[in-house]
């Protein structure tokens, strides 16, 4: 797999990152070299091997269904650039 200009633009848009031409070129180079390196793994024969989804042998810890009734709205909203009557206020997201 090769990363080209179109791919890098798509990834940038999905990530909401603005890249100028110089940055795009740099990322294309970087990402391709990472991919090349990872692709070495293709040399290993993985026939009849189950995909490994996790290296931990522990099991998923679970909690009981107990709610804590703490109201942290002040802390939650503390870093919000804009807020109103307990709501986050953001630029309008529908036309």
């Amino acid at each position, binding site marked *: 797999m090769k990363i080209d200009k179109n791919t890098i633009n798509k990834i940038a848009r999905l990530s909401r990152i603005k890249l100028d031409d110089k940055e795009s070129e740099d990322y294309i180079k970087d990402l391709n070299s990472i991919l090349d390196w990872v692709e070495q793994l293709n040399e290993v024969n993985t026939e009849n091997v189950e995909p490994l989804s996790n290296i931990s042998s522990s099991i*998923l810890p*679970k909690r009981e269904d107990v709610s804590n009734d703490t*109201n*942290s709205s002040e802390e939650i909203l503390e870093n919000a650039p804009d807020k109103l009557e*307990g709501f986050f206020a*953001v*630029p*309008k*997201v*529908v036309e």
Partner: protein
Amino acid sequence: MNNLIKGEKHDWEMVIGLEIHAQVKSNSKLFSSSSTKFGSSPNSQVSLVDAAMPGMLPVINKYCVEQAVKTGVGLNAKINNYSVFDRKNYFYADLPQGYQISQYKYPIVGEGKVTIDFKDGTSKDIRIVRLHLEQDAGKSLHDQNPSKTYVDLNRSGVALMEIVSEPDIRTPDEAGMYISKIRSILMYLDTCDGNMQEGSLRADVNISVRKPGDEYGTRCEIKNLNSIKFIKQAINYEAKRQIEILESGGSIEQNTMLFNTSTGKTRPMRNKEEAHDYRYFPDPDLLPLEISKVEIGKIKSSIPELPDELKNKFIETYKLSNYDASVLTAEKKTSDYFNETINSDPELKNYAKIVVNWITSELFSLLNKNNQDLNNSPVSPENLGQLIKLISTNEISGKIAKDVLEDMFSSGKTARQIVDEKGLQQVTDQGEIAKVIDEVIAENPKMVEQYLAGKDKLLGFFVGQAMKLTKGKANPKMLNDILKQKLNKKN
């Protein structure tokens, strides 16, 4: 039943599949301990996990997992011992993580099916593809300010079960019946409160049209419908829209649509350029979810009687029709009420059909008229049972019973009290009825002549007159019999 829509050139068939989002009825959220209560002040039920503060880690709610398994069993579905949580990535103001924790390749519940029952006694299976667990998003308010959107994260992180159907649905009515059936199962299981108004249960509808027998057409998805009425409206509108495009030679673009509840129209939500690319990948913060056979067995054994089982039991025990039984079992409160009524007197089981009618038509219409719910009906099952007993023993007529029920509803008195107080007992004394009939015949000689000359319809007139004289209390069957006898004797 004809499921086709007439077109200009040929008939069209709708192909519909539903994705139902059902909030798990739990105290706390799927991955945090915040409360799930509805209607609290904005952002008051948001933990640092729900707000996606750096370094916060999700810990799964055991109860929510059990409810998903329970629901899977209720949908006759395969429960997967192994499932995986994935991140579904997209940017939106009410999704602070920038991704939704969901399940993609390995859902907790696999293929199942539910049955819907038609009025004509037939039924149909709708296949379920899967059920998976995921987080709900926060809520955005767009209409409060011309340049701002307000965001409340109270709902963010509440556990959702997404139930995906195969495209087995062919009409808006079937879609409505399917979601009602799912709602009914969820409420019997008590895994979701089924409240569509508050958004605890909502659906995305996938719809395409085709010439019957053809391959599936290109589909559009209508997002976030929270009432059965809107689901039907949206399907009807969208099918018409697609047929119009196809018949004028155009083609359908696969699109996500929004339904405007005030205009009844659908419109595209996002344009094609921003087509979804969710970049699903396993969430590194969560280990795979494994459930042992023993745990599944334990949950299975805790499952209460479900609507279909109960329906079959009602059909068998009380010889009810498939339709009557499915109306009774559609909601747990209705089947509970029926059970309590019919068990309030050993005789009543012989009058099951009458019990059904009195609950589903008379009592329901009174409740509706007074804006009340069966759960706190002013007429208790025992009292309704007593009323039906009075009808079945011919002590009062069905017509008078309707007035008695209304009286019971408003006064809270028992049927017995009202009947005794007002002297409503049916007149079943042959002599007394005969006397009244003689009176009516004597008073209307012309009518009698006409009747005897062949105007049979006049029988109703005589019955009416006699009923009037007895204040509606004469036993209708006896009245009819004696009247006919006496009139024919005149011949």
